[in-house]
C-alpha cells in the first residue's frame, strides 16, 4: 500500500521536498551535536532539560490521546468515528516516533541506547515509559496498517487486528500516567512535585490531541476532499472541550499554589486556553468555521506552551537543586534538530495519510 504514498500531485511533492530539506538541515545540526557534544545546545548544568524534553512531553501526550478515538470507537461503538480511527492511530504512530527521536536526540551517548533493553532497571519509570512507548508505537502502527489493508482489500479486519488495537489502549494510559508520575517524582524540581500533574497531563494531552486531530481532518478535507465527517469532529470537539476545561481549571489552581504566576508564558497559555475553551463551548461561536479552527489551534498552542515553556523551562527557572536561577534559551542547532524531527514526523504522517486517503478514495470511487 505504501506505493500510494509515492504517487501524488505537484503540491504533494513540493510539500515532501520541503520537509526533506528541513529533515536534512536537522540531520546536519544533529551531526554537529553528535560531534561536539550537547554543549552546542542551550542546556547546561542548571537547565539539564531543554526544548527536546519539552517536545517529548508534548508529543507523548498527543500520541497517548489518540487512544481516546480508538477507545470510543471500539469499546463504546461510536460509529461516527469510524473514519477517524486510522487517522488517530497514525497520528499516534508519528507522535510516538517523534517522541522516541527526541529521547535519542537528548542523549549524551545515543550509541548506547540499547543499554535500556540489555540492562533494564525495573525500578526506573524512565525505562517503563520508553518500553510502553515503543510498544504503543508498534501496536498503533500494526493495527492501523492492518485495518487499512483490510479496507483496501474490501474485507473485514482479522480478529488479531482488533486485539492488537485493544492492547494499545492500556499502553496509552500507561504512557500518560507514567510520564506524569515520572516528572512529579523528580525531587530536584519543586514545581513538578504535585499530584495534580498526573491528571493535568492526561487532560492537557486529550485537549491538545483531539484539537490537533480536528485540524488534521479539516486539512484533509481542504486538500484532498476526504471528509471524516462533521459528526466525528463534533465528537472530538466535545472531548477536547471537556478536557480543555479540566486543564485550565487545574492550571489555574496551580497558579495559586506555585510560581507559575511569575512566568509571562504561562499567563499566555492560560489565557488562550480559556479563550479557546470558551469558543468551543458556546454553539454560537463554534458554528463559525474560522473561530472553530482558531479555537482548536489556540488550544494546541496553549498546551504546547504549557508543556514546553511552563513545565520544562519554567520548571528549571524555579529550581531547587542549587538554589540558583539560570535562564535557558535553545540555540539554533537545537532548534534545527527540533524542526528536523518535527519534519520527519510530519513527513511520516503525510505519507501515512496519503495512503489512507488513497485507499478510502479508491474504495469510494
Amino acid at each position, binding site marked *: 500500500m505504501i506505493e500510494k504514498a509515492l504517487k501524488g500531485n505537484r503540491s504533494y511533492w513540493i510539500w515532501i521536498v520541503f520537509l526533506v530539506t528541513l529533515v536534512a538541515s536537522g540531520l546536519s545540526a544533529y551531526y554537529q551535536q553528535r560531534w*561536539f*557534544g*550537547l*554543549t552546542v*545546545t542551550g*542546556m*547546561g*548544568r*542548571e537547565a*539539564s*532539560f531543554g526544548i527536546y524534553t519539552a517536545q517529548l512531553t508534548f508529543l507523548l501526550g498527543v500520541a497517548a490521546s489518540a487512544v481516546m478515538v480508538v477507545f470510543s470507537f471500539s469499546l463504546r461503538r461510536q460509529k461516527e468515528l469510524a473514519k477517524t480511527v486510522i487517522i488517530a492511530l497514525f497520528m499516534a504512530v508519528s507522535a510516538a516516533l517523534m517522541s522516541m527521536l527526541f*529521547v535519542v536526540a*537528548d*542523549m*549524551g*551517548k*545515543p550509541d*548506547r*541506547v540499547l*543499554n*535500556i533493553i540489555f*540492562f*533494564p*532497571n525495573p*525500578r*526506573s*519509570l*524512565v*525505562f517503563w515509559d*520508553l518500553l510502553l512507548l515503543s510498544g504503543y508505537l508498534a501496536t498503533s502502527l500494526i493495527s492501523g496498517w492492518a485495518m487499512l489493508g483490510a479496507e483496501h482489500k474490501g474485507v473485514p479486519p482479522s480478529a488479531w487486528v482488533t486485539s492488537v488495537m485493544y492492547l494499545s489502549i492500556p499502553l496509552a494510559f500507561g504512557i500518560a500516567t507514567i510520564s506524569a508520575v*515520572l516528572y512529579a*517524582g*523528580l*525531587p*530536584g*524540581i519543586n514545581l513538578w512535585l504535585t499530584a495534580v500533574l498526573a491528571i493535568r497531563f492526561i487532560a492537557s494531552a486529550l485537549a491538545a490531541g483531539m484539537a490537533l486531530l480536528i485540524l488534521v481532518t479539516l486539512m484533509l478535507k481542504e486538500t484532498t476532499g476526504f471528509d471524516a465527517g462533521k459528526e466525528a469532529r463534533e465528537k472530538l470537539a466535545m472531548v477536547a472541550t471537556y478536557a480543555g476545561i479540566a486543564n485550565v481549571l487545574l492550571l489555574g489552581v496551580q497558579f495559586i499554589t506555585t510560581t507559575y504566576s511569575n512566568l509571562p508564558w504561562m499567563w499566555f497559555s492560560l489565557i488562550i486556553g480559556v479563550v479557546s475553551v470558551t469558543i468551543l463551548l458556546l454553539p454560537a461561536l463554534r458554528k463559525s468555521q474560522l473561530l472553530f479552527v482558531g479555537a482548536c489551534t489556540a488550544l494546541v498552542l496553549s498546551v504546547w506552551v504549557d508543556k514546553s515553556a511552563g513545565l520544562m523551562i519554567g520548571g*528549571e527557572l524555579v529550581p*531547587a*537543586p*542549587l*538554589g*540558583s536561577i*539560570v535562564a535557558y534559551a535553545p540555540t539554533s542547532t537545537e532548534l534545527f534538530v527540533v524542526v528536523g524531527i518535527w519534519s520527519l514526523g510530519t513527513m511520516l504522517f503525510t505519507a501515512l495519510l496519503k495512503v489512507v486517503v488513497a485507499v478510502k478514495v479508491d474504495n469510494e470511487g
Partner: protein
Amino acid sequence: MMNEQRREFIKKTALGVFAGLGVASGLVPAFSLEKTALPVWDEKPVPGKIRWGMVIDTRQCKEGCQQCVTACHHEHNVPAFKNRKEEIRWIWKNSYKNVFPTATNSAVSKEIQNRSFLSLCNHCADSPCTQICPTGATFKRWDGIVEIDYHRCVGCRFCIPACPYGSLSFNWQDPRTAIVDPVTAYPTREQGVVEKCNFCSDRLVKGLLPACVDACPEQAFTFGDMNDPVSDIRVVLESNVTMQRKPELGTKPSVFYII
C-alpha cells in the same frame, strides 16, 4: 623471511600516524600507569556489611581554602570548565542557604551565614538518582557508595533533576580538553556521560582515605564505616549534633555536617 620483512614494513606504514610518538617510545620504555598491587579487599565484598559515611565539621572549614576541592578534582581528572553552563563539580563550597535551603532554623548567626559548606554527593541510602536511571548505570554499591558506571551511562540526564542536592554533572563536551594535569591512575570520562563524587572508591581499595579527607589541613573530615560501632565516624556521630541535607525528603544521606 621476505614475509616477515613485509609484515614489519606494513605495520610501520600503518603506524604512520604514530610515527613521531613511536620514536619517542624508544626513549621512554616504561610509563607510569597504576602500580600492580593487590587491593585491600582480597575477597569479594559482602553487600551491606560496610556503609561508608562522612562527617564534615564545618567549624574547621577555613574561608578561602580550596585544598580538598583541588585534591579531589586533580585526583579524578575532573575537567576545569570555567563557564557555569558546563562546569563539572565533584565537591565544591557553597553557602548555608544553598546547602540547607529547607533547614527549619533560618535565624542562624552571621558567622554561619558566611561560613562555607562543602557540597558533594551524599551517597544516600535511599537514592532517587539510582531509582530513575533506566539502565542501572547509576547504582548503589555493596558498601553504600552511589557509583556511576561510565561504561553503561547513556547520558539521558534524568538523574540530574532527580538529585535534590545537584550533585551530578554532565559532560556537555569532551572533558579531556579541560583537564589541566591528567593523572594516569584514574580514567577521565568521555563526552555525553554523567559524573559525580564516588567517595573515592578508587582510593578506598588501596587502603587510602578519600582525597578530600587527606587533603584537609584542618582535619575537618571524619570518614569511616558507619556500620562499625567502634569506628571514628561512629564516635563523632555519637558525640556531636549533626545535620543532614534536606532530611525531609527521606533520602538518608551518608554525609553529615557539624554546624
